């Protein structure tokens, strides 16, 4: 009991989580959550929250240049490397009453469920993103959402004793507490403007060609190893056996989110992101389901036109095999704002 008490005192109150390393997974997640909570206070009832991973790269500043016409304000609560399990816990604390936003927009790779080689259930990064959001009552359920026994145990014990996840952060904190405190304060002051005004790199893959029949790629000069790796590992990934793992995962976690918003006026919108700098041929993978399309039968769920952003699938608009570059973001942001505003209709005070 004493151990749980000490753990709770430090890690279930803001006492320690306020001083998490801002560049850690948990620190990033918490910074974004608090930034968006602050944005809720500063804005009216015209907010649209977007959620996704680093592929959902758009600039809210550019999207909000259309606010005078659309009436909507876009806020991005996406976290690099995150997925729908983490978005569920993000939204649960960001929007406890499930009514704060006009719409919540999820950016996904595809409406169809393409299984990769990695089991999404067993992505332990989720634990590190959401640890500060987990409650005692989540421990069993959260742990059970992993398939591997070892991971289930790790998730379970960590949800009960958060210090097990925070220990590396605590040790780093103890190594130089003053430096950490100063950095946290700096981040608190500047995070909103750093992220809102952030400009993506203007590097691109312009000139890249892929011969899908020979499964070979010709890179333009000046492309670095990271860029090559993302193209080879993501864009030119081989088909994995389609066993329905992603479908199950999406049905579970999007299902929970949709359940929370079932009686809400908040619309849930799914957007298929630009798939890559070059489109993969359709015959590479034969998916067997499209869970996102299934969600569209629910009353408050909308699907954005799947091909709405196909025009962005060009090497000169991507910085690597996964992410849009500055020019891509500059084109995508207003497109997104227009598309979503169009789907929601003109803004009117509720």
């Amino acid at each position, binding site marked *: 009991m*004493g151990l749980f008490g000490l753990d709770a005192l430090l890690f279930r109150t803001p006492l320690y989580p306020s001083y998490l390393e801002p560049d850690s997974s948990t620190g990033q997640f918490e910074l974004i959550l608090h930034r968006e909570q602050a944005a809720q206070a500063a804005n009216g009832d015209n907010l649209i929250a977007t959620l996704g991973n680093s592929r959902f790269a758009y600039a809210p500043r550019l999207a909000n240049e259309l606010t005078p016409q659309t009436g909507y304000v876009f806020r991005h609560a996406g976290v690099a490397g995150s997925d729908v399990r983490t978005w569920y816990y993000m939204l649960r604390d960001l929007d406890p009453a499930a009514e704060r936003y006009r719409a919540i927009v999820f950016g996904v790779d595809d409406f169809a469920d393409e299984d990769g080689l990695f089991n999404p259930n067993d992505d332990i990064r989720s634990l590190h993103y959401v640890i500060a959001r987990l409650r005692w009552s989540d421990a069993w359920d959260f742990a059970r959402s992993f398939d591997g026994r070892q991971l289930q145990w790790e998730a379970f014990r960590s949800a009960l004793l958060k210090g*097990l996840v925070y220990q590396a952060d605590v040790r780093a904190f103890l190594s130089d507490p003053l430096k950490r405190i100063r950095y946290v304060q700096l981040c608190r002051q500047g995070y909103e403007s750093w992220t809102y005004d952030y400009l993506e790199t203007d590097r691109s893959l312009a000139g890249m060609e892929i011969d899908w029949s020979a499964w070979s790629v010709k890179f333009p000069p000046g492309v670095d190893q990271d860029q090559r790796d993302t193209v080879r590992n993501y864009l030119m990934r081989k088909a994995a056996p389609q066993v329905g793992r992603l479908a199950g995962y999406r049905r579970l976690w999007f299902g929970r989110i949709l359940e929370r918003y079932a009686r809400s006026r908040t619309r849930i919108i799914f957007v298929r992101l630009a798939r890559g700098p070059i489109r993969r041929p359709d015959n590479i993978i034969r998916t067997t389901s499209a869970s996102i399309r299934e969600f569209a039968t629910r009353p408050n769920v909308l699907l954005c036109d799947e091909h709405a952003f196909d025009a962005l699938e060009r090497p000169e608009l991507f910085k690597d095999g996964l992410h849009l570059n500055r020019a891509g973001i500059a084109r995508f942001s207003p497109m997104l704002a227009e598309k979503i505003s169009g789907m929601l209709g003109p803004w009117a005070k509720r």
Partner: protein
Amino acid sequence: MLFNTTQFFIFLGVVLALFYAAPRAWRRYILLVASYWFYGTWNPKFIALLLTLTAIDYTAGRWLEKISEPRRRKAVLILSLCANFGFLGFFKYYNFLGRNLAWLLGRPENAFWMDIVLPLGISFHTFQSISYVVDVYRGQQKAIRSPIDYALFICFFPQLVAGPIVRARYFFHDLLDWHAPSTDDVSRGLLLMTLGLTKKMAFADQFARIANGYFSNVAGNPGILTAWSGVFAFGLQIYFDFSGYTDMAIGMALLLGFHFPVNFRRPYLASSITDFWRRWHISLSSWLRDYLYIPLGGNRHGRWKTYRNLMLTMLLGGLWHGASWNFMIWGGYQGVLLSVERLVRGDRPAQDGWEDWLYPVRALATFGLALIGWVFFRAANLTESMAVLRQMFGRTPGHLLLEPWHWGLAAVSLVVALGEEKSEWLERLAKAPVLAYASGLAAMFFFLEMFGAFDAAIPFIYFQF
């Protein structure tokens, strides 16, 4: 099955439940089966070896009690010792001797090499078994009638693989006149298990990362500070690792109603090398004293023979740890230090008092000398040991490998050790009111939670011996 794993705690929970749920007459059988099962999880084949040694020494004990003629008694003792040292020698030292023989004969290094797996804990249970037979021979211990009881003495799981080396009289006193553990025993047992686990996972395993990093690439980590901090980390690792294991072993034995002697008494607070060996791995050093040093003549035959006996005892003590020249050198180094200390001190008793104003200097010097010894203990071979020593006493400054929180851990352990030395807080905590006791346990668990290395189960160092 390592003590610091979930599987072990499940195993222990099941054993405790079965032990206390079963009728009294069944309990030793439960412990015996559990102990063999525990050993079998590592390598079931070597249970046969354990049984063979058990049968030999059990029979030797029984014969020694029946036979009265001194020559025949001696023959039985020698037979038993030959069997014990024979098995130990074959499994532990065959390849070492083979390598050296090949070198002497100018043959390839692996000319006599055999693929031999070292049975877990063989050095510990062999020494324990030998002490029993010698004690029976000397008339200091009655031969045990029940083979089950004797088998349990050899394979009792809390101390089977890494000690402490328990003398027969302590073990059978508890086994043959078994009493349910008192409340104090249970609280002390739980406290020791928690303390041991904390020592292992929060201290030893954290320092292990530094030490392993340094010793895996000595050439790539040059500099005085680098070398000293790498060796310092190993010094703390080996202490916390081994004393943590021992604390857990003593703690779980207490929960089962057995009382094992203390094996460590804050060795890094020792004020001399003599004092260090009274505090470090006490069950081994007292074994060496009783069954080697004293039979060799101890300090009874003049100064030079005392030095010779010290050297021989420590050399063999070093060799007990492992079959390599490094362990021999480590043992020899300890022997030289003990001899020099005795030479300087003369016949005066060792000054171990805290009150001595020179104590901090002497303790620091002893710690430094112990660290230098650990270089031979940890380095892969003699060449690497010399490379480390050259760095420790070189000219390049280097950098500290420890982060500030490592120093924090070291400082906490020093404060706790000083507190224990002065006021025996552990004993007092075990008998303290529930709230204070629970707070102590919670603090240890919290320390474990914050600093425990949970991502990898690092084996106990002494499991390899």
